[in-house]
């Protein structure tokens, strides 16, 4: 009677297969390749790589250092981020959205730019300290070249990350729980201690775990602050080994990157466990609690909060801009010496710099565009297909971003060191290997907002198009894409911002001709040309600002939380 049963499944199949193939290529293959290198270098099972790594003393020193800066950096980030979240969410301080924008800003700035800015602020050549006449004598050591410096900057960089997660948790805290406690006679501090903080423990622990993963994986800060002090952590150790030994030491580097991958994995698992527990006691959803009136303390608290912003954002950025205006190292800045020569040099004169800008723009743009296009079908499967295996698909996409960037970089090197089988195409030593790593690493940044976008759309909109006779691809084009586009594009913008001054991955993958802005900054700084590095950093910060403003235009069409700096 009928021959049409099961017709029209072809497109669904095609989409699923393409999506699955992409994810295998971008997420699963590199990880498998890395593991293979450890256990079976060259194809035969062997524990040589592992035992060589384990017996090397520098491995253990760097591991110890990694854990030290990881733990203390996390502790600082948790103290800062949680206190700010409590003040901003639970009290009646004014000017909240401006404050949140400024406080979250460091998260949008590349770590090595943060590092450079702080170095310019405190060093003996600091134009600002010189202006004030309190600069240490030239030749003295910058106090930030130390583990303490690294810890301080990690805390500043990832405090906002903790802030965002704890704030999200606090927003879900039902007001009744706070009000019931106050009705029972508890004062504000008692409520905080006995109700709010215990209920927020899962949020705070999850945030701490995420901050830990970010701290141990960070490359930019320990590279700028630790290498001059010869204080190496695992990511910088890997960088130094590769820079010195080239592909010959890849096996060695693979072992170290798996080691740091395992440390990070512990953090990721802790965070997974905690986020799953987050909701178990707080079942009802209701309005957030009335803000606590600070009364006469309000003004002092606000002043303190803005002092924090001045200290962690304005002063370093000022230091950065000032040293980008100085003609050379150690020259004091005044009306006579101030110059735009550094900008002219990096923008127009130095060939490698122009190439780096072009490369980074092209890479970021391609990565963003690709991620937006791919995120829409992947998010469709994740959000709407309702199949269980899709959960693992999502997890696989998260992995290259969750794990430290060096892990992915080493895995990419291993994959593409030799020409791709059957085609003979060589990606190693070209810009394409960086593009591959960016695609793999940043895809999740577009995927998350897109999934959130899908959750906001009533699925009946798609079903209505289905009964109107539209096939999957037609629905994607005419109904789904227009509806989730704002969220996906916002994700694309986030990728563009992150990738533009990215350093961790490109530091390991670049070759002559495929320099990126991050690599350029790093080599200027290592060569002692801080002024050029500052000029480039100032430019990238300005671009980031403009992009944030641009993204704000989309804000009305976005699920909340997509733009982290929007309150």
């Amino acid at each position: 009677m009928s021959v049409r049963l099961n017709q029209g499944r072809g497109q669904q199949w095609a989409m699923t297969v393409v999506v699955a193939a992409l994810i295998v290529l971008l997420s699963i293959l590199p990880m498998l390749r890395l593991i293979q290198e450890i256990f079976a270098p060259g194809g035969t099972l062997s524990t040589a790589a592992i035992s060589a790594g384990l017996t090397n003393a520098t491995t253990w020193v760097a591991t110890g250092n990694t854990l030290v800066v990881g733990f203390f950096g996390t502790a600082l980030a948790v103290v800062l981020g949680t206190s700010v979240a409590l003040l901003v969410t639970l009290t009646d301080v004014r000017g909240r959205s401006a404050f949140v924008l400024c406080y979250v800003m460091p998260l949008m700035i590349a770590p090595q730019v943060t590092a450079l800015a702080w170095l310019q602020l405190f060093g003996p050549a600091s134009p600002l300290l010189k202006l004030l006449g309190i600069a240490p004598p030239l030749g003295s050591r910058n106090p930030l070249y130390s583990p303490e410096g690294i810890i301080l900057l990690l805390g500043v960089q990832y405090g906002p990350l903790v802030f965002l997660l704890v704030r999200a948790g606090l927003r879900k805290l039902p007001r009744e729980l706070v009000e019931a406690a106050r009705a029972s006679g508890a004062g504000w501090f008692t409520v905080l201690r006995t109700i709010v903080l215990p209920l927020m423990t899962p949020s705070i622990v999850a945030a701490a775990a995420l901050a830990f993963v970010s701290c141990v994986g960070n490359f930019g800060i320990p590279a700028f602050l630790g290498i001059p002090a010869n204080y190496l952590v695992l990511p910088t150790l890997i960088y130094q080994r590769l820079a010195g030994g080239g592909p010959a030491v890849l096996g060695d580097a693979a072992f170290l990157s798996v080691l740091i991958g395992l440390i990070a994995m512990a953090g990721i698992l802790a965070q997974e466990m905690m986020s799953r527990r987050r909701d178990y006691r707080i079942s009802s959803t209701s309005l957030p609690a009335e803000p606590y009136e600070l009364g006469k303390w309000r003004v002092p608290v606000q002043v303190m909060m803005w002092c924090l912003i001045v200290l962690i954002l304005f002063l370093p950025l000022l230091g950065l801009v000032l040293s980008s205006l100085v003609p050379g190292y150690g020259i004091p800045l005044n009306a006579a010496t101030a110059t735009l020569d550094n900008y002219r040099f990096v923008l127009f004169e130095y060939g490698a710099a122009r190439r780096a800008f072009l490369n980074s723009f092209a890479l970021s743009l391609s990565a963003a565009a690709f991620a937006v296009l791919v995120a829409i079908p992947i998010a469709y499967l994740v959000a709407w297909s309702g199949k269980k295996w899709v959960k693992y698909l999502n997890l696989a996409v998260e992995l290259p971003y969750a794990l430290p960037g060096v892990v992915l970089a080493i895995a990419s090197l291993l994959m593409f060191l030799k020409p791709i089988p059957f085609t003979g195409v060589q990606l190693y030593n070209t810009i394409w290997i960086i593009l591959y790593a960016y695609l793999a690493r940043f895809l999740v940044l577009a995927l998350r907002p897109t999934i959130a976008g899908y959750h906001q759309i009533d699925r009946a909109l798609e079903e209505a198009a289905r009964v109107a006779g539209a096939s999957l691809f037609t629905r994607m084009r005419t109904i789904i894409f227009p509806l989730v586009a704002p969220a996906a594009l916002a994700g694309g913008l986030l990728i563009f911002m992150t990738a533009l001054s990215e350093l961790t991955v490109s530091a390991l993958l670049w070759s002559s001709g495929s320099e990126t802005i991050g690599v350029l900054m790093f080599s200027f700084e290592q060569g002692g040309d801080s002024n050029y590095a500052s000029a480039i950093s100032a430019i990238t910060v300005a671009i980031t600002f403009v992009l944030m403003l641009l993204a704000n235009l989309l804000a009305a069409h976005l699920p909340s939380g997509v733009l982290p700096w929007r309150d």
Partner: protein
Amino acid sequence: MAGLTINGVTKTFGDFDAVKDVSIEVKDGEFLAVLGPSGCGKTTLLRLVAGFENVTSGDIRIGNEIVSTAQGCVPPEKRRVGIVFQNYALWPHMTVAENIGYSLKVAKVDAETRKRRVDDAMALVDLKGFGDRRPANLSGGQRQRVALARCLVAAPSLVLFDEPLANLDVHLRASMEDEFAAFHKRTGTTIVYITHDQAEAMALADRIAVMDNGRLAQLAAPRELYREPANEMVASFISEGMVIPAQVLSPAESGHLKVSVLGQEVVVRCRDGEKPRHEAKVCCRAPDISAAAPGEPGIDGTIRRAVHKGGVARIEFAPDADPTVTLHFEQPDPSPFEAGAKARVRIASGWLIPGGASA
């Protein structure tokens, strides 16, 4: 246009049967309402017919074509069914005309024909001149009409309504009900209308399928559903029917028989072939009950509650013979009944609910 045959359909999610062995035959051009409390499986049934879910067993046919079997199903986009969604599901990024013309565009109908058919559809639902508006700028009733025009324009063989009035306010509902009735009359389309509102179902449908816990409880015309419920669920669900324990005293004779209810002997309607039995159940409606005149046979008991409702009072009455039963009826003002007072009522008529599995 086409009829719809649902044949022994079961849909299982995990170990939960959302729809259990349901068979319904909808005739070409018929207006069938599917009525039931929330969670009874009516929405799942609609999604099975539309093709969004596939059956676990059984089959579904539209016209002569099998569209769903356990082996596979025709996807929704190939079924030529129209759906009016509960929340309208109008695409916010398209104008009214684009919304309505979407299915024609997908089917690659040329622009001129498309415009004509969209205009016709808009005229039919009284939306002339609204073509360039966005759905966001329309009222609830207008959105509903756009949704109606959108499914109309493709000339579907079958139109499914998914609680289309649930989001409208009360006075708008009545006028939309009229509109749906007119729509059905004008187009002669086969309609399956999902609702939890029995007044709506009674007013619109040729027949009503009452669903309960995934099963089809009864499929009948509205009047029959009210007068001759097939089981206790339907009896109590429709118009707040009272289900009262009774004893059948005599065999059925031309559709009636004698029962003893709460000590009173009453002649009630029944199916043919009923025989005397114990533990039977009788369904009474409020109009079947009234205050007993002095000396008349009746049921003694206590007034539990008397609620004035303007012009009439709703009286709830607990008979002495079985205080777990509550009878309710309406008493025109001025009502002599006070809560807590003793009273005597009589049952004039009723329906003997068929016994056992005869539902």
